[in-house]
């Protein structure tokens, strides 16, 4: 294959077949299978816009909509746009404030020749991980009732900086009362103590989708041009200095969890009288705390390593 053929193939995903999408909407294959959609493909442009928007919100939750299409069991996100709302975790339906904006935006898009419909919404969880809270679950359930196919994406911009990779999750909720046949296996993530109840109560009401990314040939060219600028920014910044508040919060949260675990262990002097299952839960609680502490430490050590390497490379050479 020539490079032209490859770029043609990679750009083919951007073609929007209105007839096929309309047919898919009419068939509604997701109505018979709550786990129908399994994969998400996000374009580089949409990802960049969402992450930049999430990061710009600082410690305040922000939200936006995603536009795209479907392809079998895959939801393809072509683009995203921010909504003029904030603090999405504090209200039941934050989206309501932005309905007029959404309608105007969608109409203008169509006039401009962008045929893609809204396929989901994204919002940020600054510093507390990618999952759906109770409010998020009810919002998404509502969306899945009236706006299918619809996807929920959560981005954690703070952990993105500290981990050095985009912390993102894509979710779809199950219908009310539905019990999934198997427990969904998800990657472990630290949840702060003040959010752990909200997380635990609702974690079985949704499942996560696999995320992959794609870019057009023009995106490739533009990103290549920005490569040097990216490296200058990466080398100039330090997660140790930039994310100090977040790390302090993580350590404080860890200390609280330790106290919590300690007080529960103190009660377990009743040892033999306690049910074995409860003992096992406490062990796994300590194991979780150990894993959290290891993660915080590793991120700090990574940050320090990069500082030391930069010092050796750029400060040890003299004329």
């Amino acid at each position, binding site marked *: 294959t020539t490079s032209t053929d490859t770029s043609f193939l990679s750009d083919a995903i951007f073609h929007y077949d209105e007839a096929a999408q309309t047919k898919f909407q009419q068939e509604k294959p997701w109505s018979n299978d709550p786990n129908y959609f399994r994969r998400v493909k996000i374009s580089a442009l949409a990802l960049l816009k969402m992450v930049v928007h999430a990061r710009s919100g600082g410690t305040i939750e922000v939200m936006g909509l995603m536009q795209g299409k479907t392809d079998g069991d895959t939801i393809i996100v072509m683009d995203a746009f921010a909504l003029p709302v904030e603090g999405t975790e504090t209200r039941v339906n934050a989206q309501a404030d932005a309905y007029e904006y959404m309608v105007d935006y969608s109409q203008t898009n169509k006039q401009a020749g962008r045929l893609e419909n809204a396929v989901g919404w994204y919002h940020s969880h600054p510093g507390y991980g990618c999952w759906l809270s109770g409010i998020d679950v009810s919002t998404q359930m509502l969306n899945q009732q009236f706006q299918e196919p619809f996807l929920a994406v959560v981005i954690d911009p703070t952990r993105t900086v500290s981990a050095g990779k985009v912390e993102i999750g894509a979710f779809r909720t199950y219908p009310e009362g539905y019990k999934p046949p198997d427990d969904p296996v998800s990657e472990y993530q630290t949840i702060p103590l003040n959010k752990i109840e909200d997380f635990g109560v609702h974690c079985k009401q949704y499942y996560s989708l696999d995320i992959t990314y794609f870019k057009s040939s023009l995106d490739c060219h533009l990103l290549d041009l920005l490569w040097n600028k990216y490296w200058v920014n990466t080398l100039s910044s330090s997660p140790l200095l930039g994310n100090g508040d977040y790390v302090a919060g993580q350590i404080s949260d860890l200390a609280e969890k330790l106290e919590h675990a300690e007080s529960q262990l103190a009660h377990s002097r009743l040892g033999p009288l306690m049910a074995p299952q409860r003992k096992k839960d406490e062990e796994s609680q300590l194991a979780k705390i150990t894993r959290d502490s290891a993660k915080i430490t590793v991120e700090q050590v990574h940050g320090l390593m990069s500082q030391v*390497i930069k010092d*050796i*490379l750029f400060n*040890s*050479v*003299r*004329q």
Partner: protein
Amino acid sequence: MDIEQKQAELIDHFVNQASTLKASAIWPLIIEATSHPSLFAFSEILSTPTVSELEGTENSLCLDVLRLFAHGTWSDYKSNAGRLPQLVPDQVLKLKQLTVLTLAEMNKVLPYDQLMQELDVANVRELEDFLINECMYAGIVRGKLDQLRRCFEVQFAAGRDLRPGQLGNMLETLSNWLATSDNLLVSIQEKIKWADSTSELDKKHQKDVEDRVEEVKKSLF
């Protein structure tokens, strides 16, 4: 690099002109080159045969002026002012800009007092105007003016023409940098190997402990 791109065409133009002109007609070209607001490099013009043949001739002063602009500073001109031809205002400005580049080669933090002395500037305001308008806006330096500490912190300065003997130093510095980078890479590789082997040992130890626990449990039953 921006500076080099900007002056590449100018250098070609002047080199072509210098190649075609006779020795007696070279002086106006040298004045034009050393007055041009966007040209800060003269070694290419210096190395054209027409110009290098001026050595020891009645026009050798033109060569000296060009060498002054290639490697010298405003102080060098003042100490040789009797011997060298009078410079036009644009040439004076150019020489002072090149002086800033030379000073930035030696130190990253340039005190205002030193700059005012080297550039023959009367006061701080004039100095700052010169640095901002003639140096930063020209793109030959980037830096920060610290009025409290009365110094100019240089972040970037364009390179001047190399003086004879400078190449050796540069090569040595580059070799040192390369050696440091290579050693760093080797260290990182070693650390990666160490981390991998320690992780393997750890996993093995954990498995051994778990197997032992299972053995003991079975023996107890």
